[in-house]
């Protein structure tokens, strides 16, 4: 039997998750309730034979869609997850020089930083992908963050032949990115193949659907009639619009997203 593209991506992600669990303790996985993080949770269960041996964290901005909170309640129970909840400071406390949507998104960075401190995490697994956004295309699979959680773009460690960076100083943590090599269409094909549940908001109702889910105040639906996974895949095979076009914070100014990421955003 020859391995197809999804098999290869799956095997590599499983390898990465097993490296993270072996090398980084304490370790936790971010669960944003979106399609990518559901795939990531599924891959963790592949890696650990049906178990999720570390806690999952939801950094709650309290600005999510009600459907997302329902989903969280349902699958925390169904998948027997050890759920850690974190909350975000109000937007008034964020860097006032950021444009409005980015300032709103920065709340999540602050909430995440507080959780990392609180649980003294050495590893945080996050579901970002290279094809989402230019600065994410420059990421490592194991991305070290120094004290203050800053991403030092100019000084990223070499990463090759499946050998990853490990923390070597107190106060450091590693962001682990098992989905870095996946594309949006791979995510949907895998959801289809594996039967992974996702929030209903991704499917079109009345000519609109969400392609990417963030806070409800800064996320907008696209025009679409794709109401099933198969139709979404078909749609993605032909579109040339970027996935995060509906995420306001990416598009405000040229450097807004880069500034967010350098400061510790996902």
């Amino acid at each position: 039997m020859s391995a197809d593209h999804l098999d290869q991506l799956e095997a590599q992600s499983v390898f990465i998750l097993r490296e993270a669990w072996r090398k980084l303790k304490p370790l936790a996985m971010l669960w944003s309730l979106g399609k990518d993080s559901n795939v990531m949770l599924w891959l963790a269960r592949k890696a650990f034979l049906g178990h999720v041996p570390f806690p999952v964290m939801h950094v709650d901005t309290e600005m999510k869609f009600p459907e997302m909170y329902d989903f969280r309640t349902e699958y925390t129970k169904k998948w027997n997850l050890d759920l850690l909840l974190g909350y975000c400071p109000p937007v008034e406390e964020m860097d006032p020089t950021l444009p409005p949507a980015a300032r709103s998104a920065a709340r999540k960075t602050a909430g995440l930083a507080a959780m990392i401190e609180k649980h003294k995490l050495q590893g945080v697994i996050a579901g970002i992908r290279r094809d989402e956004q230019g600065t994410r295309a420059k990421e490592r699979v194991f991305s070290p963050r120094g004290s203050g959680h800053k991403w030092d773009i100019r000084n990223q460690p070499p990463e090759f032949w499946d050998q990853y960076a490990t923390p070597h100083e107190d106060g450091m943590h590693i962001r682990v990115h098992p989905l870095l090599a996946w594309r949006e269409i791979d995510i949907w094909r895998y959801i289809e193949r594996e039967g992974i549940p996702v929030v209903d908001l991704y499917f079109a109702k009345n000519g609109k659907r969400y392609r990417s889910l963030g806070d409800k105040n800064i996320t907008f639906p696209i025009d679409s009639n794709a109401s099933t996974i198969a139709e979404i895949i078909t749609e993605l095979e032909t579109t040339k619009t970027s996935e995060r076009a509906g995420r306001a914070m990416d598009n405000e100014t040229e450097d807004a997203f880069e500034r967010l990421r350098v400061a510790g955003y996902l």
Partner: protein
Amino acid sequence: MNEVLTTAGLASLDAADRDSALDAATPIVIVGHVDHGKSTLIGRLLHDTDNLQEGKVAQIIESSRKRGLQIEWSFLLDSLQIERDQGVTVDSTRIPFRLGSRQFVIVDAPGHRQFLRNMITGAADADAAVLVVDAREGAQEQTRRHAMLLRLIGIRHVIVLLNKVDLLEFDQEKVRAVEKSVTELLTQLDIRPSLFVPASARDGDNIASRSERSPWHTGPTLVEALAAVPSAESRAGLPLRMPVQDVYRFDDKRFVAGRIERGQVSVGDTVIIGAQGSRARVASVERWSAPARDTASAGESIALTLEPDVIPDRGDLLFFPGEEPLRSARVRARLFWLRQEPLRVGETFRLRLATAEHQVTVASIDSVVQLDDLSEAKADEVPPEGFAEITLAVAEAILFDPFTPGTTDGRGVLVDRNQKIVGGAPLIGPAEIGGDAAIYPSGSTLNAADRRKTRGHDGRVVWLTGLSGSGKSTLARKAEQILFERGTDAVVLDGDTLRTGLCSNLGFSEADRHENVRRAAEVAKILAEAGHVVLVTLISPLAKDRALARQIIGERFDEVFVAASVEVCESRDVKGLYAAAREGKIQDFTGVSAPYEAPESPALKLETGSAGIPELSARLADFAAARSRG
């Protein structure tokens, strides 16, 4: 904000296209000397093959305009604002790219600072490379460097793109001459270029479409050359290698987890486990939420249960009887060196090999590549970003397969005490023992972090230089006491004291002083690695000798200048040496009959002519404490 998506274009995707869209992407790395046109090429390629996202061109025009530039194609790849503003790529990037029904990933690596580190990160898994050479300039320093790296990471398919041939007016003879010289260079590296493409990336000649300006060119365009790159071969037919990644216990069952690097394994097979060679039978092949199959093949991340229920260690290799890998405690390796300081014989590292980690010492540097002509020569050290062949001594015999392109065999990686990756070391084979190479240096298994935890500080060398009588020993002894009282493990290596023992066979000639510095530096290094704060007091009058000390000790080294004029020192003359030197009773006396080269930029300067001992020794102690806890 809203975009209308349609499914109208779908009819053009036939069933075969949809299937092949599921194939794995082929990674292609683009390399070449700076300004030979890599970024322009990538921009042109994406544009001409209709691979740009909607609005991307407009965005690039806008970003270029803002900075007062014509269309700057490199902005496609330089997605960070700092990259655009400074016109340099700071990190490698990967761009998905589609040609007909085939998926590629283009890997672009910066050509400037720390290039090797970033290129390796992107290129190590590439199936093929495009080497961009400016047809007017031919192969340059970075062309050679990149070609060398392609060889070391085992990339077998190299397409040479001769760029800017429009500037040679598509003159066939001139193009052929460059082609010949590049072929000679690559042949020297055992790389047989699969294809040559004469092109102009700026104008699009022979990129996606055949140029009318080079009718003599009968070979492929770049796009045709890419389409001809063979897909990665299956490794399922090779002998089994499964490095154990971890062992789990869930639901009262023990799972041996790992990825099969090559071959395949089935229920009922007998496997040998690691260097100790115990045997077990595969009782089951475990997957979660997947069709049950009793076999797993190369590339799969699975788990096995074994019978009897032995507990392998991470790093143990599983293989079949009669198919054992090589076994040796001395291994020859190629090396691409990523640290910013040179590599020297005797340094200790961890060798990571798949999931295994072994303690190794560099037993010899057998040859270093000279990048100007790619010749190999014996040398004492490997320079930063250098290439070499070395011999590694391992604490015990290890199992390994020699590096083979197209497999994951022999992919050695060196990490330092802080677990930082410092080099790639594709393994060649067992090393013969012979002559003076038969030493087996061993390194500590404790790392700096462990030591720091116990002591509360790092090891450090504070090197005090200054004239005889300037007050080095007095300050160091006083600082040693202050540090000790504060719980810092301090020790003084005093020049005169060393000369009564370790260095008693040395005089004061330049060669002997040099050797004196070398020995002091080596001892200081050992003490600092063991976690001590070492205060070295040595006149060390020559800048080049102090540079040697810095090189031996590395990043733990700080230079402190104990400054006092000859007149002041001579007026003190506690040891009566100046008087003796003036009378000619002592030869080569620094400051009187031998030169003293004051440090140009010491980390700390203590002027003993203008402040008292208590104040200066406190400053010295504070400095040493801060550096060891920084």
